[in-house]
């Protein structure tokens, strides 16, 4: 929970042992109380755990029944009503800002919105298959996004027929190529480069569908289609599961053996977690792997203070960011936490997911996603 929403301090609205219905508020952001997080299922609240600095770590609901909260759908799509609906339903956190990768302020407006309807992560679900039965809801959701911005709404989809009709505001863009071609960061860099004065919001296609469904039925749709794959699972498959589902329970019967590691997210950039992350649309089961190989004699000889090996600036690294940003200087600035240089080199256009391939391609000695988050925090609060 905590790592999904950097910068959010939770104010709890429920307590352990209470019952909740799907769509009912669970907690809200202390600084921006309009942003609420709602229950993905109805049931009883099993556990609430707070971590360091009173950040919410885990909130577990055991599902029971299928009661749903009904939301009033405004008759006309006027701006404030649309905002209120998205905020109340708990779908607001599906929007993320660039720069900084945070949940946007309820009162702010972006210069553009990017809908990511393409996924090039390894083993990701094909958005066309997922959206096949939900095209109408997706179109409705996209139309609603127009009320959030004065600027364009880009819908980035895989090559082929467009998913929604274009109009004055909606623009469809077909993207093709290997990862990272499908990342919102890549699309935004090419189509609408951001700066602090020119913020952009991004949203995933399944959340757009959820907004569409909300308009249609007045109920919160919290199921998302995820791809479950990886060498630790017998047969990869697509599943429809509620947000934040228990991945251990989900995969328990399908594992090849017990020496596995369940990741929320793709094999690159995913994190080991029992629950599905807010911004993850797949789960990967890996064989449990040993920590990076460093012989014992090396550590002994160095008196247990062996330094990490540096990255080698080969030309192969240029492909890890599908942008025109200078990759090697940027990675160097991030690895030493040089926020000023990193900002000059364009790190404001990026968020954690964009760095996953860089972490992979340099052998994983350091997590550039984490480094980027630290640098972005410094830049935002400076």
């Amino acid at each position, binding site marked *: 929970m905590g790592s999904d929403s950097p910068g959010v301090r939770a104010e709890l609205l429920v307590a352990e042992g209470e019952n909740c219905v799907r769509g009912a508020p669970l907690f809200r952001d202390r600084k921006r109380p309009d942003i609420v997080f709602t229950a993905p299922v109805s049931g009883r609240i099993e556990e609430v755990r707070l971590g360091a600095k009173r950040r919410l770590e885990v909130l577990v609901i055991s599902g029971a029944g299928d009661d749903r909260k009904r939301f009033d759908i405004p008759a006309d799509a006027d701006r404030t009503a649309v905002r209120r609906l998205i905020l109340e339903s708990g779908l607001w956190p599906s929007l993320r800002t660039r720069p900084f990768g945070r949940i946007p302020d309820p009162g702010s407006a972006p210069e553009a919105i990017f809908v990511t309807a393409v996924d090039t992560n390894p083993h990701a679900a094909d958005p066309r298959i997922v959206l096949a039965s939900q095209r109408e809801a997706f179109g409705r959701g996209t139309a609603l996004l127009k009320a959030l911005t004065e600027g364009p709404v880009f819908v980035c989809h895989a090559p082929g027929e467009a998913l929604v009709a274009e109009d004055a505001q909606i623009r469809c863009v077909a993207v093709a190529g290997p990862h990272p071609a499908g990342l919102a960061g890549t699309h935004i860099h090419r189509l609408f480069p951001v700066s602090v004065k020119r913020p952009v919001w991004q949203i995933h296609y399944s959340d757009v569908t959820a907004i569409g469904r909300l308009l249609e039925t007045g109920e919160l749709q919290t199921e998302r289609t995820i791809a479950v794959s990886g060498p630790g699972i017998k047969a990869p498959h697509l599943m429809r599961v509620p947000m934040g589902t228990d991945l251990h329970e989900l995969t328990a019967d399908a594992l090849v053996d017990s020496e596995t590691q369940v990741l929320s997210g793709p094999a690159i950039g995913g994190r080991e977690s029992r629950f599905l992350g807010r911004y993850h649309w797949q789960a990967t089961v890996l064989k449990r792997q040993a920590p*990076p190989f460093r012989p014992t004699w090396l550590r002994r000889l160095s008196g247990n203070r062996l330094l990490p*090996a540096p990255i080698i600036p080969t*030309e192969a690294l240029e492909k890890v960011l599908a942008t025109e940003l200078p990759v090697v200087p940027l990675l160097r600035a991030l690895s030493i936490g040089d926020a000023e240089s990193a900002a000059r080199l364009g790190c404001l256009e990026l968020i954690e997911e964009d760095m996953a391939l860089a972490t992979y391609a340099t052998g994983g000695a350091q997590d550039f996603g984490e480094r980027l988050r630290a640098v972005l925090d410094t830049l935002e609060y400076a």
Partner: protein
Amino acid sequence: MIRGIWNRETIAWMLVGALLPVLAALLTERGTEAGLRVLIGLAVIGFWQLVFLIARGQPPSAAGAVTAVAVAVLAPGEVAVWQLALALSFGTVIGELVFGGWGRNVLNGAVVTLAFLYFGFPEIQHAPAGSMIALASGLSAILLVATGIVSWRALTGAVLVLLAVAASFGAEIAGFAFGGSLVFGLVFLACDPVASAATNPGRWVYGGLTGGLAALFGWAGDGFGAPQTIVFATLLGSLFAPLIDHAVIAIGTRQRRRPHG
């Protein structure tokens, strides 16, 4: 989360692997004496890597083997063992290890070693390497370019500018392909990923600069095939690499800012 295999040591071992044909060519061309020099090089570099591991916790790197072979290829003259050991110590420690080891250095360790040898003991004559080493280095280049370790931009830039400038001086450029020192130096020294530029436009400029300098030194100095030519061209080119990168980044930043204030 899965980790890729391309960490520093994988790249170092790839370089060592690419060196094997060169090593075979070297042993065929020069016999056991060259092999002995490689062993001395490995011993001296290994010693200093161990010292820096114990004293500063710097992990050792297989890339030291590249230095050992490069010195054996490019300094074949009548060098005494103490001279070789002194030069290797200087090159490895001052060129590489004091900066934090391979990957953090500004200059290539072999280039520093060789420059030290050429400057410190100018009376020793060094014959150019033969065509077999040129052929082997060409094979290595294919492998290294295919894996993205050696930049094709830097290599192409260096070769094109070298040929163009040398031809304009009226040199016989067809023979360059058989000059072992020149081809080996271009692939393993000039295109060392660490000591060359680290941005794509910068790689073109760096390659061009190094190739141009090699042509200039070859024409004005010891001849195009001489080992000194490519070593000094790389030394100067590497010194300019950070400046080239800085300029490329400054231009890129300005261009990105212009369209949206």
